[in-house]
């Protein structure tokens, strides 16, 4: 509390804070005290470092924050290489997001709507990859379709092609699978939550009135879970943008996060790395704010 106390003393605190009279004053003080630790962490570990990185991105020197130049941003916006990286990032994230959510809808539907045998086990199995870091997701794809992967070996054994002709773990297609490996379980988890809240009665009514299962899904279930699908798309897209470890193992496509780490390699271009970090943050923040504002996404996250 000493830091907080000094902070409070240094600014002229309103009366309700120091000498609360009413219960309402005390409550306001409690709310402040409850939020303070998080605010301190957010400023020390989040806001201040981000401000410093924004400062260095417009600095004229690499190691010191001095002067002002937009050269790093000019590079990002005019250099065709960086434009290419940005395009890669967006289409790849969008493509994997749509695929992951597309697969997660039937998966969540099956898990929540039908009495599957061992459904608890299935849920655990599908959730398991959520706690695996991206590097492990990449390794899992190499285990399946890498040069000596399981699927590679099986296909090669039953055809005339050699394993190296069959393997595609280290290609862009392999990277696509590795993204899906991280994203499908996350998308499924969000949608399962939504399915659990859907009222069963309208579906049963539709079925008893002669609707086919597909018609029931199209006209009854889908409208009910549409907000959750939007929410899953938003969150899965954000996950896709943040993927990095996977790319270090399967370097078949240069996207924004991988390029940021490359800027910090030989050459140590901290200003451009800083500008890329700022651009990423602004984009992710604006995207989230817009998505939450203008969609019916029931994520509340």
């Amino acid at each position, binding site marked *: 509390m000493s830091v907080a106390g000094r902070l409070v003393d240094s600014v002229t605190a309103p009366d309700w804070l120091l000498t609360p009279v009413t219960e309402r004053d*005390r409550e306001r003080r*409690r*709310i402040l005290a*409850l*939020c*303070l*630790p*998080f605010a301190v*962490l957010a400023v020390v*570990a*989040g806001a201040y*470092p981000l401000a410093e*990185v924004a400062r260095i991105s417009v600095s004229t020197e690499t190691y010191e924050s001095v002067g002002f130049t937009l050269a790093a941003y000019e590079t990002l916006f005019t250099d065709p290489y960086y434009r290419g990286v940005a395009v890669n990032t967006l289409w790849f994230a969008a493509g994997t997001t749509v695929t992951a959510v597309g697969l997660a809808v*039937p*998966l969540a539907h*099956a898990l929540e709507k039908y009495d599957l045998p061992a459904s608890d086990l*299935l849920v*655990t*199995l*599908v959730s*398991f*990859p*959520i*706690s*695996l*870091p*991206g*590097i*492990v997701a990449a*390794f*899992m794809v190499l*285990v399946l379709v890498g040069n*000596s992967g*399981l699927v590679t*070996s099986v296909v090669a054994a039953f055809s005339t092609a050699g394993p190296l002709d069959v393997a595609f773990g280290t290609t862009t297609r392999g990277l696509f699978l590795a993204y*899906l*490996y991280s994203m499908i379980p*996350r998308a499924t*988890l969000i949608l399962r939550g939504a399915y659990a809240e859907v009222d069963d009665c309208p579906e049963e009514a539709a079925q008893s009135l002669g609707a086919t299962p597909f018609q029931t899904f199209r006209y009854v279930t889908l409208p009910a879970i549409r907000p959750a699908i939007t929410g899953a798309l938003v*969150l899965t897209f954000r*996950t*896709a943008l*943040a*993927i*990095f*470890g996977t790319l*270090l*193992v399967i370097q078949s496509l240069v996207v924004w*996060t991988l390029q*940021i*780490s490359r800027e*910090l390699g030989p050459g140590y271009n*901290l200003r451009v790395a*800083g500008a890329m970090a700022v651009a*990423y*943050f602004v984009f*992710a923040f604006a995207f989230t704010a817009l998505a*939450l504002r203008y969609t019916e996404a029931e994520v*509340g*996250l």
Partner: protein
Amino acid sequence: MLVATVAFLILPVVYTFAGSFATRMTGVVPQGFVTLENWRVVLGLADTIGSQRSMGWTTLFELPLGGRALGVQVPAELAFSVALALGGVAINLVVGVPIAYAVARYDFPGKEWVDAFSVLPLVPGVVLGVAFLRAYPNLSATSFGLIVGYSLLKAPFMVMAVRSEFESMDLRRLEESARSLGASWPRTFLTVVVPQARSGILAGAIICWTLAAAEFNFSYIVYAKGTQPLALFLQRHISNSAFPQAAAAVSLFFCIVVAVTVALQRLGNRGFDAIGGD
């Protein structure tokens, strides 16, 4: 469809675990079962040519045993990661539990914003790593820097787990009963409210711990030298080791995740929450 997707997610896990006990993994079926050599190499128990790839061992503490001190040895990187992640969880408890209570219990102006900011992972690990390099050049590669970074990155999971627990309780009545019996507000919060939410708090702590122990992106950017966090140890094996050894390193991590999942299910928690990128 369902079967194919589940197979896609789980088959490589099973195959990797099995492969970690094989000597060779070429062809359809791994060969040379059953050997513990890969695990011994990965854990640093066997002499290897590339010994720097294996886990070093360090003396955690010494037991005085019959006049001679018996050193209790632990794998250095595992112990280091466990400690770093625990540090992150400690900070998360201090910052996460109070703010979750504020949002669950009180109405105040700007509550939606506080709510959104406390559960949205706004900064991904890579970006935060770059920011730490710049803001704290002397701290960023230290254990302290890693702990603070982990705690910010994983804070949303703690807040969500604890908040949902708080929301299932009648907080107003609980608080008023305690107050009417004469407890001060801080005492009410610390000795009545917090203990009531212990299963949510414990679940949040376990989730934060696992995710911090596995955090790769941030660690990779800020890490400088010395003992490596577990995620970097995994990456080192995945990138450099022969397949069975990499399989053993990854399987070691599977074991941790399985242990944590079992612990979470004991608590009645439905598992990991869905957001958070890697």
